[in-house]
């Protein structure tokens, strides 16, 4: 794949929502490029549009106007079904509250995205094992989320995000529910993913310490980019 064009291109994107009888403009003509292998932090006050932008980049929503191009594909024109299939192969999502299925073991949680791919049980097992190795949880494969600490659960979440080997990882406040030590470990892990596996990472965060780990921090205000803090 050619890496001349950015991994993520957001072109003059507008996004509006209907709230009751009113129309709320959340993003107003936003433009953003994220290069391959770049770690970008999205910051801004509440209601600035960070999560909305993240959802658009991750293919969880479609813009009202404008285009979102990820890995050369204009995802803003895809149908919901096409987006679902695209997400499985191209996006790894890390949630603030981990959102692991409580009745499944760590192994089965990480395996979930692979169920949608034409892989044999052996192939799935290999990929899950590799993902859990990377996040350092090989000894916890049969534990359920209730038996894991917050940091460990987030590691499982990251393993699930990388198990399909996506090029892009989007993280929505990945350290928001963790103590300082666990948050540090998670951020280190994300950094390792960028460095060793050349993952592109877009992270929404309120945490300045998390933002420090990013190559670049993008500030959003009222649906637009504020002047950037370059690293």
């Amino acid at each position, binding site marked *: 794949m050619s890496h001349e064009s950015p991994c993520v291109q957001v072109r003059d994107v507008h996004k509006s929502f209907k709230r009751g009888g009113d129309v709320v403009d959340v993003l107003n003509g936003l433009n953003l490029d994220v290069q391959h292998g770049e770690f970008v932090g999205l910051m801004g006050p509440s209601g600035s549009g960070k*999560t909305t932008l993240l959802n658009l980049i991750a293919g969880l929503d479609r813009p009202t106007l404008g285009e979102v191009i990820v890995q050369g594909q204009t995802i803003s024109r895809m149908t919901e079904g096409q987006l679902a299939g695209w997400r499985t192969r191209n996006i790894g*999502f890390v949630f603030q509250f981990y959102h692991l299925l409580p009745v499944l073991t760590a192994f089965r949680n990480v395996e979930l995205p692979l*169920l949608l791919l034409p892989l044999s049980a052996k192939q799935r097992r290999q990929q899950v094992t590799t993902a859990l190795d990377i996040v350092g949880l090989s000894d916890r494969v049969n534990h359920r989320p209730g038996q894991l600490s917050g940091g460990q659960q987030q590691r499982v979440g990251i393993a699930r995000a990388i198990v399909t080997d996506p090029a892009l990882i989007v993280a929505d406040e990945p350290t928001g529910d963790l103590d300082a030590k666990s948050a540090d470990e998670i951020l280190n892990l994300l950094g390792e993913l960028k460095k060793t596996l050349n993952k592109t990472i877009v992270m929404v965060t309120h945490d300045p310490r998390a933002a420090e780990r990013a190559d670049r921090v993008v500030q959003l205000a009222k649906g637009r980019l504020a002047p950037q803090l370059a690293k």
Partner: protein
Amino acid sequence: MKYFLLVFETMRQNWLRTLLTSLGTMMMVFVVTLVFSILTFLDRATSEKSQNLKAIVSERWQIPSQMPIAYADALSEGAPQKEGDHRIESKDSMTWSFYGGTTEKDLRLATRSSFLFAFALLPSSLLTMMDELDSLEGPLKAEFEVVVGKLADNRRGIIVGKDRLAALEKSVGDTITLYGLNYKEINLEVDIVGLFPPGRYDNSAAINRDYLRAALDAYPQSHSGKSHPLASKSLNLVWLRMKDKQIFEQVSNQILSSSSFSSPAVKVETASSGISTFLEAYRDLIWGMRWLLAPAILVTLSLVISNAISIGVRERRMEFAVLKVLGFRPWQILLLVISEALAIGVFSGVFSAGLTYYMVNVYFGGLKFPIAFFGEFRIPWEALWWGAAIGGGTAFAGSFLPAWSARTVKVSDVFAKIA
């Protein structure tokens, strides 16, 4: 297989709810299985056979039928009158007189356990014409043949069903006196010569018709020459077996066109038709069971399942949103929810129906539900797939709307509150 495991694992989300839904399903499938079994039995009993059918000859204008004993011989042969008329062989006919009695001389002291209802018939017809007894095989048949032989040899003999014998607190070999209920002052001293095979006749009895006739003939001797009121009304039913409908039509015409059976007039109908007529009195009950009770239970079950699944879907909205984020398509979410419901429904239905089958047929030896003259009902083997169909069908019906709701979870809406 991978999806099946996922379905099973997500069912463990809330064990208590799964268990309670399953128990509710089992309970309702149990009731519907019982109702369907009774209805199926009655449907089969009233459906017309085309071959090897049995016909009943009875009084046309009165129930219970009380025909003169003089009709017996002619009707037993099918009333052939001329060359070419069909003659019924003796092995293909049976006459019934109903004798009801009690072992308690003082009727005021009689209890249910002292009553006995007997068919007065020719002993050999027990083996050739009585339903279920005419198709016995192996040791059971050999054993019963011996008992019938004893009844034929002993005019005072009586064959009793095991439950009735236990209620009378008597044993084979005992002699009892029966004080007539319908045949007042016709008291019969009978020797218990044996038992009916277990099953349909557990609460019945059979005596030699000649013994009853002899008692009726002897009545005037002790009653100033007056005949017993039922002396000329002691023939209740005549059974005839015919090869096919054509012969039935022919014999029916022979009997109905004969002037010998005009006072009282008789009618000829197939057994299924006769049973239908007898069930007329229960028509509303049967209708209610078929069109009110069973549908009400099915609807209730669907609503119960729908409620349980709806609650589950509401609680799991975030989970469904996560699955969508991971790439699960809406139809896969729909299928996941419906599959969970189906798994619970089908398993519970089959288990319940199977357990009902075993408990009713094997453990209790039949469902004693006194509708018409049917002593007991058994669960047919079809109940096993009824259980699957009822459990699965109601699970599908009840889970469809909640599953549709799960399918339409908007990922962006669910995560809107975060960050």
